[in-house]
């Protein structure tokens, strides 16, 4: 059953985007509903596939009916399942948030069109089992995000978009060059087949060069620290729902997911690669946290905080132990929830007050209770205060660090967690608590759909810890952890799933 549903993850958003361009600009209100229904369908489908996955295990779909090394395959293993659930739920909530928020902008149908294309691109990257196909869908998601960052067409937005587009294209060139080298030495594009070919060869210089190229390319896409310069400009400049998508899921599905897929499943995770990942992760945690502390622009602060939190994910994955990987993938899921929520909060504040500067805010708790309370939940969650979901994932990562004997990394992770608490205290103190500033007396709470999506995300943050309960944890987190852990055996799993 699940077998035939797999292409729908790409086909449905694409068809919705094309229909949107055809009909959407003629009928008012149609794009909202079409996009809402399409993303709701995808979210439902992804949750339904969690249920189906328990029965079937990893699935492979042969596009066009061609056998794997010849044709393109779609593969769904545990990690892809987790990513699909994350992407599609966030996409649905962002989509209903945009119904009210995007009224401020012109050409709403175009916004939804690009948004759906971005979702299609991310889903395509996640379920792809073919190297070049991954690149193609990565470009779809990337190109639509370049355009979406510039959607407001003001000075800062265009500048940020140009910078982002140049960096993204540079990253894509590196990735494509890596794919060219890989094709040249293995003469195949299927990832499973590639990993089998590479396992048979003795390690050589060229594999090292390919690793460096991929690490640079996907590191640029996921804004890990030496390559993070574009993110603090690009993410705050986009409209708030898009900031939520970019920070919440795009850098994960295009960057972190692709790194895990390529280094753990295709190239094989050597100890050197793992230690590089741990090092980059830790540097990202500390640098991102320190830079976030000094920001007064709400969205810019959140953007720097994203760099820091992505560092936790990479650190967890880089540990390579079962507990560390569990923490990494769980933090990835949690970060999508609370960072999207925080960006939606910042959008709500901007929608009502017209400013993003924390110094000009104050006392918004009285005027905007839903926004203030949901942002409090998200802040506590991201700073790691029990019982919210962020606490559990950070705890697992730190415990895993200590268990693996990396005390320095654990120390930095704890320190950065305190930093996180500090800068979110600042947000709460200046933004929502305190006295109401003079100019803000007329401020009203945001419309219904914005409140709805923020509330749902806050509930997810609150209940996220429940995913760790033994009976449930195996269904989503456990399968993702196993998929990463058994990355060496990716080829066997994929070819075993052929029907």
């Amino acid at each position, binding site marked *: 059953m699940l077998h035939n549903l797999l292409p729908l993850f790409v086909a449905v958003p694409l068809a919705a985007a094309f229909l949107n361009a055809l009909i959407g600009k003629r009928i008012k209100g149609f794009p909202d509903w079409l996009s809402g229904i399409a993303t709701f369908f995808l979210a439902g489908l992804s949750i339904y596939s969690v249920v189906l996955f328990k029965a079937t295990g990893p699935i492979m779909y042969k596009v066009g009916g061609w056998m794997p090394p010849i044709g393109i395959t779609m593969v769904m293993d545990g990690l892809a399942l987790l990513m699909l659930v994350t992407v599609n739920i966030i996409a649905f909530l962002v989509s209903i948030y945009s119904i009210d928020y995007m009224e401020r902008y012109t050409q709403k149908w175009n916004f939804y069109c690009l948004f759906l294309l971005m979702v299609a691109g991310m889903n395509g990257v996640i379920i792809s089992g073919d190297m*070049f196909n991954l690149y*193609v869908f990565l*470009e779809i998601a990337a*190109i639509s995000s*370049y*355009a979406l960052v*510039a959607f407001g*067409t*003001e*000075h*800062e937005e*265009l*500048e*940020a*978009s*140009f*910078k982002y*587009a*140049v960096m993204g*294209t*540079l990253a*894509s*060139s590196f990735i*494509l*060059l890596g794919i*060219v080298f890989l*094709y*040249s030495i293995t003469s195949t*594009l299927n990832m499973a087949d590639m990993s089998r070919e590479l396992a048979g060869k003795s390690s050589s210089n060229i594999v090292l060069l390919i690793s460096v190229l991929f690490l640079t390319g996907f590191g640029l896409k996921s804004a890990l620290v030496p390559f993070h*310069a574009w993110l603090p*400009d690009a993410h705050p*400049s986009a409209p708030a729902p898009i900031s939520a998508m970019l920070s919440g899921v795009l850098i994960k599905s295009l960057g972190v997911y692709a790194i895990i897929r390529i280094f753990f499943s295709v190239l094989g995770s050597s100890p050197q690669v793992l230690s590089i990942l741990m090092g980059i992760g830790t540097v990202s945690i500390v640098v991102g946290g320190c830079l976030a502390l000094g920001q007064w622009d709400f969205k810019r602060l959140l953007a720097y905080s994203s760099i820091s939190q992505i560092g936790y994910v990479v650190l967890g994955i880089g540990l390579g132990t079962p507990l560390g990987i569990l923490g990494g993938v769980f933090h990835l899921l949690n970060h999508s929830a609370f960072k999207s929520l925080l960006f939606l909060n910042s959008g709500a504040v901007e929608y009502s007050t017209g400013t993003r500067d924390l110094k000009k805010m104050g006392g918004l708790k009285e005027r905007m209770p839903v926004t203030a309370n949901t942002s409090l939940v998200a802040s506590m969650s991201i700073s790691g205060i029990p019982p919210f979901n962020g606490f559990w994932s950070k705890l697992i990562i730190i415990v895993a660090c200590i268990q693996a004997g990396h005390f320095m990394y654990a120390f930095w992770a704890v320190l950065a967690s305190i930093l996180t608490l500090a800068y979110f205290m600042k947000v709460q103190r200046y933004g929502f608590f305190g006295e109401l500033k003079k100019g803000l007396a007329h401020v009203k709470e945001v419309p219904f759909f914005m409140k709805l999506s923020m509330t749902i995300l806050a509930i997810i943050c609150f209940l996220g810890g429940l995913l760790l309960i033994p009976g449930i944890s195996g269904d989503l987190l456990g399968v993702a952890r196993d998929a990463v852990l058994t990355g060496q055996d990716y080829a066997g799993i994929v070819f075993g799933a052929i029907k």
Partner: protein
Amino acid sequence: MSVYFLCLVLFSIGLYCILRKRNLIKIIIGIMITEYAVNLFFILTGYRMHGRAPIHSEDQAILNMVDPLPQALVLTAIVIGLAVTALIAAIAIRVYEKYGTFDITKIKRLKG
């Protein structure tokens, strides 16, 4: 081998242009050069010495065709390059309209 190396040289010229030039149009040109270099590299890896184009002929059987797969992939990559170039050119035109210059040392509203 020397052909591969010359292709890498072309790639690094594009890289230099992207990293060092201070003009939006020059940066777009750098992006185009890197794309050309990668596309050419892909086709070079699929070339077979004294090969023929991968198109069947009605009157004779051709045995030594070159690898058709990189050609198909590069066709896609060319389209991607065109799309990216068009989009970045559009952004550059808007930036020029807003700031009145292509010089990125003068386009500095964001703190970076």
